[in-house]
């Protein structure tokens, strides 16, 4: 056994003295350096969820369609025809702030592996990106680096990036968020899991060789706040090789057609250590690793480094005994290495041997089940109540509503995202039916008439002003976006990005967020099947706004019946479903035109929201609407403009019903509203359906001409306005 280490070494590993005491007590002795490294990553916030685990249990995770809930590499839902959709969202925030290109690239690589590890061929990816203010000097560099990194990895591996979101807020100036989502499709009865079984079965290492990159990525980079020295942590960021990952993907999927594999897990955060410990833990097994057999990229690596490396594009699998050659043959076809590096045992101990010495002998349960669980103190921040107060009398109406609309359309959070998504291959695979730029992406299920709709959403200003309601609204907006393309929402993957959980106000925000997701997911019948918690999004005492990113997946039974937001035909009637209230709080309008981040987010009635969804889906099924669009950030005026900007580029002429302030009518963000256009002959039928679901219906006007005419307050030329909207982001980024 190697020499035992002291408590001071544990400090350097980010473990508390209390945790150190617990480790010594569990083992009955001080750990070796290698063992301490293993504890540090396995008990890190990133791997153990020690601050969040107690609360995540509140989330609804079951449902008739759920094949796999949280706890595996990815979640899975049954699509009903023998297919399963396998998906997950995951954060790669700190690496992307420290090294934007590789940080974002390897975030994409990691989430792809999580999905194909389950036996699913990835068919689509999304990304949710949050940056600081565009006026912050570092922001353009980070935006360009992250977008290029995502493109580099996604474009080189042949999985289309079909959508996502990008937003800007000074709250992310010092800690950006990069959340990557991938969805794959697998036969429903052939999902692969990371549960080791079978004493004596070989543990096989496949993929790229192990180097020194990413050591302590999980413990020191992902589970601690950023500070002025964070750039020095660049060596903790991994380097991605999408080509190797493409080979790994094809080789794994080919191997999975046979019966050689018992269990498989990606070597992601905490690399060889977490993949072997977690597989053994889920199966109640022990495992012996022969570190001398691990394929290495560099000379002179130590056992400690081999155990903790986060080199990318590696997988660990447990094969049936005697099938080693069959596994090696498949990988050889793809020019990849497969090395038997260990075997399963029945003693429940994680052992690692190196140069004739046993450097680790740790009970697997000590690393997994015995990991600490914290119920950290939580307290509502005092400032919140003040921030939620808004006196409308102090908000002047804009002198020129047309100019106000143009300013909104050019603002960083509402302008076109074309500059971003034209850098992503969103077509490869040949199944992209609705491309980026609509409410949700639609991807056909190969060889069927069905399709999946995908979206990822969160309004962090809402969450900052009301962490509970903000989380509810993130779920609701995601569901509404799916409904807008004609899809029934099925299930959620969530990425919970918060600040330092050791701060009571952050912990309170987190608890509120989880409760919000729970309530909305229960009401909308969309279980959470996978996800990720990212804490410590804090830099020098400043925490990010709470950001529970919601990725949601929906199903269309008939892909031909999908809808897009864009007007299709001159003369079609424009209808608003839902009610506009005098709500200006937390709006983009207040932030952009008045420089105010305050007020309460818009009110929501989850039952009314459900009725709206039922109405829209029924109308879509009867093919009544020709376009359908969620009224979201920027309100009705922005939504009307967006419907004109895409497709054939048709103008609008609508009237405004008065009764509330004009700015609230135009730019307020009241929830549970949809904008649709339809031929006049379908209006009667739509009214019947709306009456049945008790959803307010207002005829606003019609699709007409080449300008945006809204009441007597806005009259803008369509072409010129669209160009300003389209070019705004590129212009702000400096080309």
């Amino acid at each position, binding site marked *: 056994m190697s020499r035992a280490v002291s408590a001071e070494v544990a400090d350097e590993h980010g473990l508390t003295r209390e945790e150190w005491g617990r480790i010594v007590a569990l083992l009955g002795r001080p750990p070796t350096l290698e063992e301490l490294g293993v504890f540090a990553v396995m008990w890190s916030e990133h791997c153990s969820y020690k601050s969040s685990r107690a609360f995540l249990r509140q989330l609804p995770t079951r449902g008739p369609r759920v094949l796999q809930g949280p706890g595996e590499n990815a979640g899975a839902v049954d699509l009903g025809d023998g297919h399963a959709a396998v998906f997950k969202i995951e954060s790669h925030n700190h690496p992307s702030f420290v090294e934007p290109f590789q940080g974002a690239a390897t975030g994409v690589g990691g989430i792809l592996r999580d999905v194909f590890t389950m036996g699913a061929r990835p068919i689509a990816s999304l990304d949710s990106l949050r940056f600081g203010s565009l006026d912050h000097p570092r922001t353009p560099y980070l935006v360009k680096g992250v977008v290029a990194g995502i493109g580099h990895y996604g474009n080189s591996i042949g999985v289309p990036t079909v959508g996502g979101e990008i937003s800007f807020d000074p709250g992310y100036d010092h800690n950006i968020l990069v959340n990557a989502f991938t969805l794959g499709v697998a036969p429903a009865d052939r999902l692969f899991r990371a549960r080791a079984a079978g004493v004596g079965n070989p543990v096989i290492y496949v993929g790229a060789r192990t180097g020194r990159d990413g050591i302590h990525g999980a413990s020191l980079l992902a589970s601690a706040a950023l500070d002025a020295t964070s750039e020095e942590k660049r060596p903790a960021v991994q380097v991605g090789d*999408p080509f*190797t990952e*493409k080979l790994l993907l094809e080789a794994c999927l080919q191997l999975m057609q046979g019966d050689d594999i018992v269990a498989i897990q990606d070597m992601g955060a905490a690399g060889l250590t977490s993949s072997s410990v977690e597989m053994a833990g889920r199966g109640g097994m022990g495992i012996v690793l022969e570190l001398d057999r691990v394929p290495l990229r560099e000379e002179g690596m130590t056992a400690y480094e081999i155990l903790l490396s986060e080199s990318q594009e590696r997988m660990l699998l447990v094969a049936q005994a005697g099938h080693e050659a069959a596994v090696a043959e498949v990988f050889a076809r793809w020019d990849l290495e497969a090395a038997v590096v260990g075997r399963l045992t029945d003693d429940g101990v994680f052992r690692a041997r190196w140069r004739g010495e046993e450097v680790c002998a740790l009970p697997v349960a000590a690393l997994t089940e015995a990991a600490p669980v914290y119920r950290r103190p939580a307290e509502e921040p005092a400032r919140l109540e003040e921030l939620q107060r808004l006196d409308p009398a102090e908000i002047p109406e804009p002198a020129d509503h047309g100019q106000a609309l143009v300013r909104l359309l050019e603002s960083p959070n509402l302008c076109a995202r074309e500059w971003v998504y*034209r850098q992503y291959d969103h*077509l490869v695979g*040949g199944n992209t039916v609705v491309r980026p730029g609509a409410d949700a992406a639609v991807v056909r299920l190969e060889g069927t008439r069905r399709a999946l709709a995908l979206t990822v959403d969160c309004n962090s200003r809402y969450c900052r002003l009301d962490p509970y309601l903000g989380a509810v609204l993130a779920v609701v907006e995601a569901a509404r976006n799916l409904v807008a393309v004609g899809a029934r929402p099925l299930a959620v993957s969530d990425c919970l990005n918060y600040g330092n959980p050791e701060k009571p106000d952050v912990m309170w925000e987190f608890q509120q967020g989880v409760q919000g997701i729970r309530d909305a997911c229960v009401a909308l019948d969309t279980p959470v099947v996978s996800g990720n918690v990212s804490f410590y999004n804090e830099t020098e005492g400043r925490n990010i706004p709470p950001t529970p990113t919601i990725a949601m997946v929906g199903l269309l039974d008939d*892909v031909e019946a999908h809808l897009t937001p864009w007007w299709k035909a001159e003369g079609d009637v424009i209808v608003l479903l839902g009610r506009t209230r005098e709500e200006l709080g937390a709006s983009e309008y207040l932030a952009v035109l008045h420089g105010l981040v305050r007020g309460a987010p818009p009110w929501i009635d989850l039952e009314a929201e459900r009725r709206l969804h039922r109405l829209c889906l029924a109308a879509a099924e009867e093919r009544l609407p020709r376009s359908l669009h969620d009224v979201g950030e920027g309100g009705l005026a922005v939504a009307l403009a967006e419907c004109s900007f895409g497709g054939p580029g048709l103008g609008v002429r609508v009237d405004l019903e008065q009764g509330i302030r004009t700015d609230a009518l135009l730019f307020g963000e009241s929830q549970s509203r949809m904008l649709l256009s339809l031929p006049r002959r379908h209006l009667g039928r739509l009214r019947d359906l709306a009456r049945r679901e008790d959803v307010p219906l207002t005829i606003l006007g019609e699709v007409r001409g080449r300008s945006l005419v809204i009441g007597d307050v806005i009259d803008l030329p369509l072409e010129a306005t669209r160009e300003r909207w389209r070019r705004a982001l590129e212009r702000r980024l400096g080309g």
Partner: protein
Amino acid sequence: MRWGVVVFPGSLDDRDALRAAGCVLGDEAVALWHKDRDLGGVDCVILPGGFSYGDYLRCGAMAKFSPIMEAVARHVRDGGLVLGICNGFQILCEAGLLPGALVRNRSLSFVCEPVTVRVETAETFFTHGCRAGEVLELPVKHGEGCYVADEATLAALEREHRVVFRYTDRAGRPTPEANPNGSLQNIAGLCSAERNVVGLMPHPEHAVEHLTGGADGLRLFRSVEAWVARGAAAGPAASAPG
């Protein structure tokens, strides 16, 4: 007819090409492995899009040394049909089966968007179902699609009517705005002197269904089918330069 789609390690649009030829056209379509030395009797070889061997050195630079490329070169010498799409076009240039080279986009960014191209000649197996001057909408998606060649080569290409597609606006004008990557003379695709090898940066295999964004590419694939059917009836397939 029988299509063969070469699968290099790192090929990405191979499945899309197989779907276009197999599922959409209803032809026989087979995957050809890069380590193979035989084309299995296919009528037309497609070198698909992607990043063969990762393209870390230079696009197509590794692929030209793969065993299958010897068979492709033989197929070309025998007058067989070869279509290179995107990375396939890059490989054909690297392998010397088409002149010139494809370099980094002028914008230095990857670009994925629909473009319009003008059919410059109907005198190839790939375009004879179109009229010269016709404008098609096809998507591009590449980081290195800027076509370059020396002046003598460009002059010869124009003189021999070997520019097959040019980036233009919808009205067929080859404007700088219509050029997504900075290609010289807005060149989007070209053919060999014998006209049996065509390479292009846009992706016709991604334009074969209205549901997923238009069907202009379908007419190009139909051209190949008709050409092969006629060749089967009338002998060798190469046509005189037009």
